[in-house]
């Protein structure tokens, strides 16, 4: 047995905490090694000296009294009937919160998936040949084009006078249903507006989110769910969204 190993085990041995085989091995070593034997004597003396000289501190009576009165005051404070039923009510409300949180989590995940889909759709539309099915700056051409392709007639505006000319429209398939995609321009930037009837379409989503450098704005009117996607700066995109919202609110 080496001396460091001996010293590590010596205290456990003196405290009676060493397993029997280890203790036997250590005792054998102690008999053979005078150095370790002296070490053992000194270590025993330390323990004895501590027990002999070092003070215990009895709790003062004032402390005892303080503890008792603090505990009893705590009992009185809690004696108001916070009983089985109120505990049950708390548990029930916690359960509601938990389920609500879970559902919100699901909705959250669903709307995130929706935003992902719309973003992909936007990016794909920017690839050559994918942007528009009907190219026209005339809202009276674009709107009728959707007839027979969708089960709703999307509101189409031309904001050329405000710097957001209508470029065209196309069909998209999002969230399990065909939706309208309207394309507007702003200088070199393109804006996709996705919309579908609020009822019967996918719902939810954050009002604004930015992914991969594209901004997504989302809002819902009584009639339609709107998503707007573009690489346009956020302030200008919000101006555009405001135009759409105003246009929608005055639409017949």
């Amino acid at each position, binding site marked *: 047995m080496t001396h460091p190993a001996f010293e590590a085990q010596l205290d456990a041995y003196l405290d009676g905490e060493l397993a029997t085989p280890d203790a036997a091995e250590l005792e054998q070593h102690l008999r053979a090694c005078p150095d370790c034997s002296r070490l053992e004597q000194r270590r025993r003396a330390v323990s004895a000296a501590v027990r002999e000289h070092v003070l215990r501190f009895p709790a003062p009576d004032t402390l005892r009294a303080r*503890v008792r009165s603090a505990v009893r005051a705590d009992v009185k404070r809690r004696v108001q009937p916070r009983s089985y039923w109120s505990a049950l009510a708390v548990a029930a409300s916690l359960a509601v919160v938990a389920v609500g949180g879970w559902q919100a989590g699901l909705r959250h995940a669903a709307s995130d998936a929706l935003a992902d889909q719309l973003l992909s759709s936007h990016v794909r539309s920017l690839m050559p040949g994918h942007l528009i099915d009907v190219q026209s700056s005339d809202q009276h051409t674009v709107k009728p084009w959707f007839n027979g392709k969708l089960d709703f007639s999307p509101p189409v505006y031309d904001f050329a006078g405000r710097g957001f000319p209508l470029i065209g429209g196309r069909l998209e398939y999002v969230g399990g249903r065909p939706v309208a995609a309207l394309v507007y321009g702003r200088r070199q930037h393109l804006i996709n507006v996705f919309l579908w009837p609020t009822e019967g379409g996918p719902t939810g989503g954050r009002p604004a989110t930015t992914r991969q450098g594209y901004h997504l704005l989302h809002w819902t009117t009584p009639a339609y769910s709107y998503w707007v996607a573009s690489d346009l700066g956020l302030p200008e995109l919000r101006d555009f969204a405001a135009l759409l919202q105003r246009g929608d609110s005055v639409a017949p």
Partner: protein
Amino acid sequence: MESSELERFEAVVLPHLDAAYTLARYLTRSDHDAQDVVQDASLRAFRHFGTFRGAGSAEGRAWLLAIVRNTAYTWQRRHHGDTLTTAFDEERHSEAAADEHPEAALVAQGERAALRRAIDELPPEFREVIVLRELEELSYKEIAEVAGVPVGTVMSRLSRARRRLEEVLCATTEDC
């Protein structure tokens, strides 16, 4: 909390107030702080008494001491802006102690005073294992529960703490 539970608490936990106060005294090294720590810890123990699964007196003691210990560490952090753990640098401390206490002074103080002082100057992790083992005679397993460390750590801390005290005794009595 029913009155029977209050009675049970007073029967199981309050008998260990001396042990609680002793540990708190050694951890805070202040009578005033120790009293506040014990009162605070007792109230916490009472409020969580429902979670106490033990039955015997020894279990009640280890349970209360664990709460006292945690309360003392939190107390130190909150009221003195440091932690008991980091308040002492082990290496630096032992050198500083050697500087502060020349051998002659130690001899003059006598073994008893030197030992008490040495314990007060131990890092708190060492101090608490000495108090729990030598004064309260807790088993390694109980100390491990109170200090929230593995039994192996208790063993090595106790060994190092005693070696430290042994050095002090050697220097005082010149008998080694």
